[in-house]
Structures are given as C-alpha cells and as structure tokens.
C-alpha cells in the first residue's frame, strides 16, 4: 500500500526549464512534508520541507506548493541546471515519540540537459 504517490517516474527538461514533481498522500495524520535529493552513489539529502499550515515555501530555486484540501504537494525547480540532475523523493512524516517516521514516495529521476 503506497501511502505517498509520486509522479512522474522520470523527467527530462532543458536547462532553464521548470520541472514539476507531484506527490499525493492519503493519511491526514501526516504533518511534515520534506523533499530529499539523491545524487548517484550518494545517500539522499534533505532539500526543502513544508508544514501543512502554509501553502508555499521557497528556498532559492526550489519551491514547494502544498494543497491541504487536495492532499497534494509538489516541487518546482526554477531555472533548472544540469547540476540539478538527480533523483528526488517526496516524503511525509508522522511524529512518534522522539522520532519521526518518514514515508517516501517512489522517486523521480530528473535529467536536465544543456
């Protein structure tokens, strides 16, 4: 049972384009939504995160849009660069005790071409 559905599976954009990756969730108990970026041969690293009390968060060229009523959130990368080529994972988190359990989407492999 996939609790966080991510699309598309892969994406190719030209340099300067705006790739958009979408995620949808079912569990309304999720209360934190991070995005992780993974380069080949490396572990994922936190890119940006949002809480459900705001509809948008921007950090540099990366923006999360959040729609609580639709239970959807998306990552936009402005002015994309070849160095942004990586796999992106959305996630949703539920706090439990002193740790938060992350439920990840299936990942989107982004390629930014010259």
């Amino acid at each position: 049972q996939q609790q966080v559905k991510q699309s598309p599976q892969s994406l190719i954009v030209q340099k300067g384009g705006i790739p958009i990756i979408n995620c949808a969730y079912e569990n309304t108990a999720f209360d934190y939504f991070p995005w992780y970026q993974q380069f080949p041969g490396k572990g994922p690293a936190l890119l940006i995160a949002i809480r459900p009390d705001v509809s948008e968060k921007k950090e540099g060229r990366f923006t999360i849009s959040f729609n609580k009523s639709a239970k959807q959130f998306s990552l936009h990368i402005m002015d994309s660069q070849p160095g942004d080529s990586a796999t992106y994972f959305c996630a949703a988190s539920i706090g439990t005790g002193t740790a938060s359990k992350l439920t990840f989407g299936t990942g989107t492999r982004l390629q930014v071409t010259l």
Partner: protein
Amino acid sequence: DVKVTQSSRYLVKRTGEKVFLECVQDMDHENMFWYRQDPGLGLRLIYFSYDVKMKEKGDIPEGYSVSREKKERFSLILESASTNQTSMYLCASSRAGLHNEQFFGPGTRLTVL
C-alpha cells in the same frame, strides 16, 4: 561535517548466510534508521531506534533484525539471507525530536546469490 558511514559499499553473499550491515554516525544523534531502496518502490523503513538498546519495527521488518549497543552504532542483521533481500540498504540518523532532518549514509549495495 556531519557523517554517517556504512561498513561496505558493495557486498555479495550467498543464500542462507547471516549478514551484518554496520552503520556509524558521529553526530551524537539519538535516532537511527535502516531503509532499503529498490527501483520503483522508493525508500522503505525496515527498523529504527530512538535510544541505545531500543528498537521499533518499520514498514518491512520481516527477515531482518537490528542491534544498537552503542549510541553511535546501529547494525542491521539478515539472519538467513534470501535473494529477495538483494537491494540497496541505507542508514540514517537524526537528533531526538519530531521532524528533525535525517542524515543518510552512502548506502550498501547487497547482492544475495
């Protein structure tokens, strides 16, 4: 610089062998996690630990066990490896508290023949 290290980048084992995957973090983090990463399935949580000698099952604990004898070290154990456990295994750690960033190691690619 924060660091999570995993004992091996690549490992090849035979069906039925007992396999130990080791993870060490140098950030004095309370929480540690083991995930497996498979194409098309993303990262799935196997086990996590929020304190020494404490452990909790994740979403796919079957066929795995863990050990946390010291705060900085979290081991994943495959008691009797099977071919369907061929995967990339990722360890992560985070500070105590809700929604703190998880820091990941580089992963161990395990192949079970």
